[in-house]
């Protein structure tokens, strides 16, 4: 079966299978190229801020970088669904928050079952953590429940709106309000002391 080429001046006959295969291949190549371009663009624009956001959440710069890189890889894999830079950025934020949550959960389990080190031997991770916890506010933030901490960090560090925070955390806007208010109330005494 042959069809006429839609915009062909000459009456060249093209096989349907050939056309379909060519369209599929070109479509996948174009998608792949779009995904790589999006990775490059989003990396240059948002990588640093995302790493810092993850670093506040997981309290470790190296782990934060891994989390963000994983999020970029996942975004590249999901580009067929996204196909939009704005969607990709919100996907990245959500992925970073989710992966940071997973890291903290895993770390809690490891800390629970790991043998306790000697008191005078701080771990290598401790150096990176202490960098982030020089401030009493950050130390108090660490003591908050995970959801409250995430909401506060996304609100006051990433400057996201309530809707964006809700999307990144996978909760409703009302829950975002509630977490933010409770977190701020818990931090109030520390913030007063800081001033």
């Amino acid at each position: 079966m042959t069809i006429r080429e839609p915009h062909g001046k000459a009456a060249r006959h093209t096989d349907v299978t050939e056309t379909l295969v060519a369209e599929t291949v070109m479509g996948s190549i174009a998608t792949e190229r779009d995904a790589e371009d999006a990775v490059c663009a989003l990396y240059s624009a948002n990588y640093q801020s995302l790493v810092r956001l993850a670093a506040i959440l997981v309290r470790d710069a190296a782990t934060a970088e891994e989390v963000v890189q994983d999020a970029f890889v996942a975004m590249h894999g999901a580009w067929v669904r996204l196909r939009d830079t704005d969607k990709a950025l919100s996907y990245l934020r959500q992925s970073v928050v989710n992966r940071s949550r997973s890291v903290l959960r895993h770390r809690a389990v490891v800390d629970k079952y790991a043998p306790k080190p000697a008191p005078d031997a701080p771990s290598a991770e401790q150096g990176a953590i202490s960098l982030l916890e020089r401030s009493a506010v950050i130390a108090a933030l660490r003591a908050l429940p995970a959801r409250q901490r995430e909401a506060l960090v996304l609100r006051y560090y990433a400057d996201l709106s309530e809707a964006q925070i809700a999307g990144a955390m996978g909760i409703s806007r009302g829950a975002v309000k509630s977490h933010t208010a409770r977190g701020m109330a818990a931090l109030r005494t520390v913030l007063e002391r800081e001033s």
Partner: protein
Amino acid sequence: MTEPETEYGERLRRALRAAADGVVPSGDGLERIRSRIAHEPARDTFGLLLGWLRSLAADVRSSMPDIRSVLPALKSLLPLVKSVAAAIVPLISSLRAIITSVVVRLKSVVPERLRGSDGWLRPVLATAGAVVVALIVALVAIPGFRQGFYADFGGSGPDTSSTPPAGNHGTGGAVPGATGPSTPATSPSLGTSTAPASPCRAKSTPAAHLYTSSRPRTCPRASSSPAPTRAALTPTPTPTATASPSPSPSPSPTPSATPSPTPTSSAPATGGSSGTATQATTQSTATVKLQ
């Protein structure tokens, strides 16, 4: 938001910024992301289905001895099944008549809105059918579920014999047999994982972009999933295959015959590396001499 809250918010913002500004990401982040993308296995539906089918095939292959051991028992049960089936056939026909009458009565009793296209009868029947199908599929496909099912309802026969394939690498060839194949299985994967790094890296250039859709699939497939699993699976039958013929020359002692083949085959290669292997060889030769 009230005045003190905004003030607290500003303080919190300043503290967070001050803490986060100390974090400086490394410069090779994009390169790392690209290399991870290049080595990421293709997660399309076909690949997942293929992987599941592979694991299912490996599982069926490993549980083949169990099926073979059950077959004679099933054959002996065949006449009983035939007689039961002959007795059941009239029962089924009478059951069908009963069900038909019940359905007819239900149709007259149950209102139209319940049993129509929007009613509950069809969804309930469909759900029940789906549950049965899911149970059968889970029984066939998921080994843990099947083992649990056997343990609960089928006795200990299939459960105990199906545990060796799970611990195949440890039990099949004892210690030397298990460590032998595992090291080559890991080392080629490392070698191949480093080797395709250059073509995958090269795809960052614009000319190589055009064929990136096929390249990343070939890179991980060559390195990660199939090769180690095959390499890990195939050595385990070979010790059992070498073990099975050797009991035939020395048929009498069943417990000592099974450990003997592996040390005798591996003893020259290892050069007496393990003391247990040499002990086993001396014991086996002693038993042979005694016979």
